[in-house]
């Protein structure tokens, strides 16, 4: 296809878009809670066959807007229109019956039910039996999804498996099928790509295109600006609960979008980077060395070392054993063989408690389920890693000292909060993550493990987290960073190890002062080749 016809197509589509009637509209909706204006006079219209991206920092009102559009919360002011007619949903089920489906960032499937059961959950077709129409009609279920399976990369066998045993991408596909099986006209995707590896994201984008081509209106929330281009037709930006702009991706760059989101100029290297003063240049004492670390089939003969002042990146696709490696170092899982050396001495780490004693702490992958104590204040979230430090005679917690310490960390790490006695559940994801880092630092570690440190947090918070990692290694620590985002790894790491199927299959040294821009693409390709099957070992 020639460039010209491509352009024609694009303009034709643009023409079409403006002609299309909106399916679901929010007109001047607002939502306020005492003391907080979550959403203020926001309008958005979703058209069939259009991918509408929704951008904004954490706390900008995206979640509130989604909640209103999907019927979870009622707008305080303004109205919703479906096909131009005023519509009031009182709950999510009602919205779903009207064809509005929401796919959340955190999977909302029942993990123990099969894919098929999940798709029809609560709306199972029935057939006649002993007690009237009381029996489930599995045949009808199967025939309804059969034509869609292949298109969205699922097999019949996978449909019979527990949904929890499927990968994140397949689970998304299930949710899409769930939407389509009920003739969804609007599909809302809340950060669907978090937790997906790069190639999986591409498949998901294909799924989204297919939905679009079927005439479904998509609303897509994402933090990754690089994803938008080539897929989004319209971009709406929210900031502080207000509608800032509705723009076309053709006229924007990631930089201009960030400016719209943040409302101020951002430091250079916008897409989440912040520059590090100095890179590690080699030759410092070894903090951690692993020799032949093994655990079943998950980890096979892992050898690595991290030195003082170094950031070691770990790349690999989902299931390559990266998180397992972190858990093994931390003692969260028992290892079968191999040795762990800290600061030149062999150590036995059989529990996270041991790891902390030897100066190792982790910022876990799943913030909500593995890191945050939602009902605890910031203070308690921070001090839990070393309660004795602020205790009198190691027995009684000195609350004043505890609060003072927490305040210091909160200031130093730039956590945005109304106070350290605030419950952490009320903070945005990025600020929660900073508190988790503060907790790790509080235990005075020499090695910090970061597992997907910027998952689901906004651009500004991302560069803050990078800065925390830099500060930590620059002050004499060592860090291991696991990430599915290659650009992130390339920016942050001094050296990257590539894992595949539980083994380390390659190493890439990231050049210090070289122009990253030109080098990055080459390194990324090299890493991808090793991470996928068949790369140089």
């Amino acid at each position, binding site marked *: 296809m020639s460039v010209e016809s491509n352009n024609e197509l694009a303009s034709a589509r643009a023409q079409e878009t403006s002609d299309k009637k909106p399916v679901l509209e929010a007109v001047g909706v607002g939502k306020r809670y005492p003391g907080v204006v979550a959403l203020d006079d926001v309008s958005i219209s979703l058209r069939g066959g259009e991918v509408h991206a929704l951008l904004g920092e954490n*706390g900008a009102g995206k979640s509130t807007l989604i909640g209103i559009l999907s019927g979870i919360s009622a707008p305080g002011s303004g109205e919703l229109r479906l096909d131009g007619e005023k519509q009031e949903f009182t709950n999510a089920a009602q919205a779903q019956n009207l064809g509005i489906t929401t796919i959340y960032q955190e999977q909302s499937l029942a993990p123990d039910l099969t894919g098929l059961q999940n798709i029809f959950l609560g709306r199972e077709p029935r057939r006649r039996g002993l007690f009237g129409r009381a029996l489930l009609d599995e045949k009808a279920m199967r025939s309804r999804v059969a034509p869609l399976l292949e298109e969205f990369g699922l097999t019949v066998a996978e449909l019979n498996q527990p949904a929890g045993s499927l990968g994140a991408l397949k689970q998304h596909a299930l949710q899409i099928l769930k939407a389509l099986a009920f003739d969804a006209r609007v599909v809302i995707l809340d950060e669907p790509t978090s937790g997906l590896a790069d190639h999986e994201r591409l498949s998901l984008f294909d799924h989204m295109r297919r939905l679009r081509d079927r005439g479904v209106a998509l609303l897509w929330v994402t933090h990754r600006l690089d994803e938008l281009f080539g897929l989004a037709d319209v971009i709406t930006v929210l900031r502080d609960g207000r509608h800032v702009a509705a723009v076309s991706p053709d006229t924007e760059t990631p930089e201009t979008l960030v400016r719209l989101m943040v409302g101020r100029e951002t430091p250079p290297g916008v897409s989440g980077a912040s520059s590090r003063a100095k890179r590690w240049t080699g030759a410092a004492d070894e903090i951690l060395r692993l020799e032949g670390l093994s655990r079943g089939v998950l980890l096979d003969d892992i050898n690595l070392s991290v030195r003082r002042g170094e950031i070691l990146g770990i790349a690999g696709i989902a299931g390559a054993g990266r998180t397992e490696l972190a858990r093994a170092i931390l003692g969260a899982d028992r290892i079968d063989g191999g040795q762990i050396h800290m600061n030149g001495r062999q150590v036995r780490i059989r529990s996270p408690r041991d790891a*902390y004693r030897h100066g190792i702490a982790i910022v876990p992958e799943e913030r909500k389920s593995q890191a945050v104590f939602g009902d605890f204040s910031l203070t308690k979230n921070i001090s839990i890693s070393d309660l004795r430090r602020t205790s009198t005679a190691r027995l009684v917690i000195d609350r004043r000292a505890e609060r003072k310490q927490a305040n210091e960390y909160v200031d130093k790490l730039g956590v945005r909060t109304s106070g350290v006695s605030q419950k952490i559940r009320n903070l945005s994801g990025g600020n929660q993550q900073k508190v988790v880092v503060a907790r790790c630092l509080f235990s005075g570690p020499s090695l910090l493990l970061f597992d997907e440190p910027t998952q689901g947090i906004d651009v500004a918070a991302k560069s803050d987290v990078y800065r925390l990692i830099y500060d930590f290694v620059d002050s004499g620590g060592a860090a291991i960073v696991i990430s599915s985002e290659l650009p992130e790894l390339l920016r942050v790491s001094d050296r990257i190890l590539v894992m595949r199927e539980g083994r380390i299959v390659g190493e890439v040294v990231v050049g210090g002062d070289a122009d990253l821009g030109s080098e990055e693409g080459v390194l990324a390709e090299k890493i991808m080749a090793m991470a996928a099957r068949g790369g140089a070992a």
Partner: protein
Amino acid sequence: MSIRDRLARTAAVEGAAVTVAFIVMVVVFAVSSPFFLTGQNLHNLFVESVFTVLLAAGMTYVIIVGGIDLSVGSVLGLSAGMTLMTASKGAPLLVAILVGVATGLVVGLVNGLLIAHLGVNAFIVTLATLSIGGGALNVLTTRVELTGVDSTAFTNLSQGSVLGIPAPVLMTLAVVLLLEFVLIATPFGRRIFAAGINDSAAHLAGVNLRRLRLQVYVLSGVVAGFAGVLLAAHLNSVQPDLGTGFELTAIAAAVIGGVSLSGGQGSVWRAVVGAFFLTTLSQGLQLLGVDPTWFTIVTGVSIVAAIAFSRGTQWFASSLRPAAPRPSAPAAEAAEPTHAVNR
């Protein structure tokens, strides 16, 4: 500030509702029965409530850490039996007390080892030890005559008083204060809350969950054992079914007081208020001359009413407070903390 705001603020104070419900009940009883507020009746009320109070206090620890301990009813009876047996054989008071407490410790240790180290479900483990403990007391009462001990020291344990306050009440008060202090002011207590709120996070933050759970079940057993000692001294005789049903009363007391059964929330004093609520209720009903066959029904209805009142107040309080900033995604919000680690 409007009256509505003021009310909401008061209602938001943890445990305010159940305290109010308790006071209302006391007023009702005091008005309807002239005997309710007499010195003798209050004395009886306090002395008879110490057992439920102690069990509920220990249970609070277990529930906050995310578990349950059904065995305390049997521990209460069995340790009373062991104490009385030891005392009746002429052993010094201190030895008798230690035997009673040690009985609780052993049961707690068994519970803790099975739950924390083998990862067996707490409900099942403590249901089994409840059954075993009850059986052991049955066996004990058939072999040994467990009545009247002639020892002034032993009698003093229940009959003695300081400044007019009965000794068991004083000792219970001391234990309760100590338990509350440990729970809110020590690293141990803080870890219990942390494990109850999110055990995966606690594990990854360096909390030794196994040891913590073991300690909590041992603590619950020891406290129940001590309650058994006081019960032996109080009754000076032990029947085969002694302690039956106390475990459920203790759990009900904790829940009425607002200790969350899903873990991570609660305090000892709130469970104690709940325990007082239940004891006062049953005593008040007796005073009012309510037909004893109706007792359990009235008690059940009162429990439901107390909890409904408490939840209603909380709802009222939260309706005037700003909601969490991210009110959407309830599917995610509702997700329980994972209990995969070490269970």
